[in-house]
Structures are given as structure tokens and as C-alpha cells.
């Protein structure tokens, strides 16, 4: 599981959009997939490669029910053009069970769900396309403590199922909790690739801000506290 880190405006979301095909790449860069360069010009290209993206704003239709949202744009049909609701609901139950998610009624509009549940539905939806890599843009940004834990649990389950996960986050605590590697972007450039287990918090912050002398480290030296203290401020 890779965490993509960077300050505001570092280009995290842009990079995600380029990989997802939602935004054209400027020039010069290449995307390597299984070692071969690929062109991703549209969201459909990324999906075909097996890249699923969950954006920060979830992109759910509030007025549709859970099953409708899970299969949006990817409906199961029995005759050309007609929806097979029974099959979709059956698959939805199966999918959510496999993720150990329990939502009693799959036919309520997603407007009625909590933020954590909405995030879980958005993640579950991306799994229907049988992706190999899942990219999550700030999945816990707007969530409370318990809901964040729920979502992180789900992300770990994705990893355990053998999926590649790219986690974009501001939240160092989340990143250290679940990620294996951290890649830092600074002003649109790669500023380092760190194995989480053997990298200190300060090293990553230094890469994010571009210097070892920065407000965050100055603050921790001044207060004389360890990384944990600063981490709580996050």
C-alpha cells in the first residue's frame, strides 16, 4: 500500500486525476503499467487497465439507492437496456458481505447514509470493476474518529485481498497506520519515496516541506517533544 503525501497544491490530486484519466497529462511524463508505457486519455482507459479511483467528493447520486449507486454506469441487464435489479441487489449483498460491511437496507437513497457509510459505498463501487489498483483521494478527510477507523479497516481488507492501494492523505496518523510506503510530492515533483516502517515522521515532513528546517521541525525542537506530540496536532 502506497501513501501519496504532499502539502496543499503539491499536485497530489492532479497526479491522481492524470492516472485516472480524468485530466490530460501535460507532457514529458509516462505512465508505466506492468513495466510497459500506457496512454490513459479517458476514465474508461484507466478502468480497462484495472485502476479504480475514489475521489474526495465521492461522486454518489444522493437520490439513487445503494444498489443504484453501486452499479451506476455499470448496470446489469437482462434484455438490452432493461435493468436486472434482482441480480444487481444479489451482487451488492455479496460484495458488501465480502467487505464485512453491514447495511441493513440496500434500497434506501444514499442521502440517508452517514459520511462513513457513503465512503464505504464509494469504495465498494470501485471494486465492482475488478480493479487491480484502487486510488483513494483523502478518504477520511471529513470523517469522525469511529468512521475513520471503519474506513481504514476496509482499506486494510482491500490490501489483504491483494489489491494495490494508493492512499492520498494529509493525515500522517492514517498513513502510518496503514501504508507500507510513502511517496512525497512537492511542488509537482517527486520528493522522496520512503518505507514507512524505517522512516521517521520528521524525515517525511522534511520531504513534504522541502527542508529539514521548517515550521514543523522547529516547533518540535522548541517544545522538545517527540513526533507523537506533533502528530496529535495534525
Amino acid at each position, binding site marked *: 500500500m502506497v501513501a501519496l503525501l504532499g502539502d496543499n497544491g503539491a499536485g497530489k490530486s492532479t497526479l491522481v486525476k492524470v492516472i485516472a484519466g480524468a485530466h490530460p497529462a501535460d507532457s514529458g511524463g509516462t505512465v508505466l503499467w506492468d513495466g510497459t508505457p500506457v496512454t490513459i486519455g479517458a476514465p474508461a482507459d484507466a478502468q480497462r487497465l484495472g485502476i479504480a479511483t475514489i475521489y474526495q467528493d465521492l*461522486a454518489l447520486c*444522493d437520490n439513487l439507492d445503494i444498489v*443504484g449507486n453501486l452499479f451506476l*454506469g455499470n448496470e446489469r441487464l437482462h434484455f438490452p437496456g432493461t435493468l436486472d435489479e434482482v441480480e444487481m441487489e444479489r451482487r451488492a449483498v455479496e460484495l458488501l458481505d465480502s467487505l464485512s460491511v453491514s447495511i441493513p437496507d440496500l434500497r434506501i*437513497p444514499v442521502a440517508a447514509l452517514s459520511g*462513513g457509510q457513503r465512503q464505504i459505498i464509494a469504495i465498494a463501487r470501485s471494486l465492482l470493476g475488478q480493479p487491480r489498483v484502487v486510488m483513494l483521494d483523502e478518504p477520511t478527510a471529513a470523517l469522525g474518529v469511529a468512521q475513520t477507523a471503519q474506513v481504514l479497516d476496509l482499506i486494510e481488507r482491500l490490501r489483504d485481498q491483494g489489491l494495490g492501494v494508493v492512499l492520498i492523505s494529509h493525515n500522517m496518523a492514517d498513513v502510518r497506520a496503514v501504508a507500507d510506503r510513502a511517496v512525497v510530492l512537492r511542488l509537482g515533483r517527486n520528493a522522496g519515496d520512503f518505507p514507512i516502517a524505517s522512516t521517521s515522521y520528521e524525515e517525511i515532513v522534511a520531504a513534504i516541506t522541502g527542508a529539514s528546517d521548517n515550521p514543523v521541525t522547529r516547533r518540535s525542537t522548541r517544545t522538545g517533544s517527540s513526533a507523537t506530540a506533533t502528530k496529535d496536532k495534525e
Partner: protein
Amino acid sequence: MAQGPATQPQGGELGAAPVIVGLLLIAVVFQSMNDRFLSPQNLSNLTVQIAAIGLMTTGVIMVLLLGEIDLSIGSVAGLSAGVLAVLAVRHGWSEWAAVGAAVAVGLLVGLLHGFVFAKMGVPAFVVTLAGLLGWQGVHLYLMGGDGSINTSSSGAIAMLTQTYFVPVVGWFLVLLAVGLYLLSVLVVEGRRRSAGLPYKPLAEVLFRTLLLSLPLAGGVWVLNQYKGVPLAFLIFVGFVVVLDLVLRKTRYGRMVYAVGGSSEAARRAGINVDLIRISVFGIASTLAALGGVMLVSRNFAASVSTGGGAELMMAIAAAVIGGTSLFGGRGNAYSALLGGLVLGAITSGLLLLQMDTSVRFMITAAVLLIAVVLDAVSRRGRRTHARGGA
């Protein structure tokens, strides 16, 4: 009619209940003031009267589901009426060909609206406001100096609103509708059962079928007391049923709801949002043009004022009164039928009481206001509920 509360996107939390209660209330009030209100003849006339605006309402519902508005449907109905009369009378086209041409003009106009809205990013409100003026202009231009063009009172056009079916046809249609409903529900519930999903017990299915068959049988029984089921009403109901099936059971319908719910989410799901928008405006104007044909059929004439009066407002009002939200993504095709019946009943009742148009407008406005308030309140309820758990 509207079925399986748990299996479709819903019109609103309250569903059809307030409209049906309102309709019963209207019936009781007018009947107590004039006992001819519920007579078979009056009810039969009512069903024919609501057909034209009802078809326009059905189109408006599609646009409202997108969260947009179409202000041009009255003018498009007028244009279609003008095209129909000019071709059939002045140019001597066969009446069916003229009807076809009028409807085709509607389709083209709608596609044009949709194109300008979806591809050029002009708000639908403005595009169709221009349409409201512009198509009325074309309509007047086509009519030339004539204030009105009379159509044959015995041809195909007139037949549309003058045909009534013998009683046995009505009963056959009731049996067919109830049978198909029961069959389809049984098939779906059977599949749900074998897929291990929650399903409705047989008793509930039978009860729902009974609930559907009562108004159908009652309606046909009343209409048979007069001349039988009118073709015009059947056309209207037919379009409502077809549109309902399209919206609830097809991929296209799901896309329309999705675009109305969140166009950005729909776009990211790979839905061609522009195409959906253009097609919906096309359907709306086509149905408006059909409404225009019905207006000509009922008056045996197209005049410069056809479609230029209260038709637009009534069609939009009927959709909202029937329970389709103005905020997009919520509603269903049956709102056209329910809302049309409410407005038709009010009009017919006040005419029986020889009230002035002024009173009718005021009462219609009050009913519309109640419907919009219910819509806004239920929307706000949903919003707070949605954020509650976040």
C-alpha cells in the same frame, strides 16, 4: 400503480398519498356543491380534457427529473398545432402525415433546445425562454394572416379525441393491466426469493394487486356508463405507463435519474451526460407537440392562441402537484396523471359552479403552492437527515 416502495428511487418521502387525499377531497367538495360533478358524463369529459396538457406534463416531468425546466412547451404545442393545421388544411396533406410532421417538428425543436443547453452551456431556463418567444413567433408566422384554421371534424385528427371504446375493450384492458402487473411482480419476487433476497409474501402481492385493480376497474366502470373509455385518455395513460417503465426499468431511465441527482457523479460513472440532456429535451418537446395535436383535435381548429395561454403553467403545475420535485432527481411519470387529474377536477368543478377563470387561477395557484411547499419541506428534511450521521 407506483409499486414496490423499497425498489425504486422515490418521488418523495410522502409519495402519492397527499395527492390522492387531495383528489378525494376535491371530489367530495365539488360533489356536495353540484351533484353532476361525479356523473359519468362529467368524469368522462374530464379525462378527455386533461389528455392534451397531460401529455405536455409527461414531457415536463422528464425535464424536471434532470433538475432543469422547459418553459417552451406551450409554444411548441402551439407550433405543432400550427404545422398540423397548415399542412392538413392549406397544403392538403393526409391528416396522419400532418400529425407525423407536427410531432417531428416537436422532436427537432427539443433536440435543438437540448443541444444549445448541453453543448453550449446556456442555462435551460434561458434556452427555453427564448424558445417560448421564438416558437410562438414561428407559429404566428406559419398561420399567416389567419386567426385560426379549422380542421375537419370527422378526420383522423378529430378522431383522436372523439373515439370511445365499447365497454368490453375497457374491461379487457383492466384485465390485461392487472394480469401483467401480477405476473411481473410474481416473477420478480420469485427471483428475489431464489436469490436469497428479502421478498414480499404472496398475501402482500395479492393485496397490492387488489389495490391497483380497484381504481382501474372503478374508472372503467364509470367511463362505460357514458360512452366507454376515451381514446384520448388511453393515449395519455399509455404514454405515462411507457415512460414510467422506461424511467424505472431501463438503463436509460436510471441515467436520467443519475444526471438529475448529480451530473458530476453521472459523468464520472461514464454516462454521456450531454446525450441524456439532449434526448430528454427531445422527448419533452415531442410530447408537447403531441399535446398540441390533441388541442387541435379537441377544438377542430388551430388558432394563433393555441398553446399560448395557461397551458405551460398548467403543465408544470400538474407535474409538481403530482409529486415530481423541482430540484431534480425525484419524481415519477405517474405525477402527470395524478397532477393532471387534480387540475382537471378543479377546472371542471369550477366550470360546473359557473365560477370565473379568475377564481380557477387563484385556486390552482393555492394548490400549486401547497405542492411546492411539501416538496421543499421534504427536501429540507432529507438534507438534515443526510448530514445527521456524518
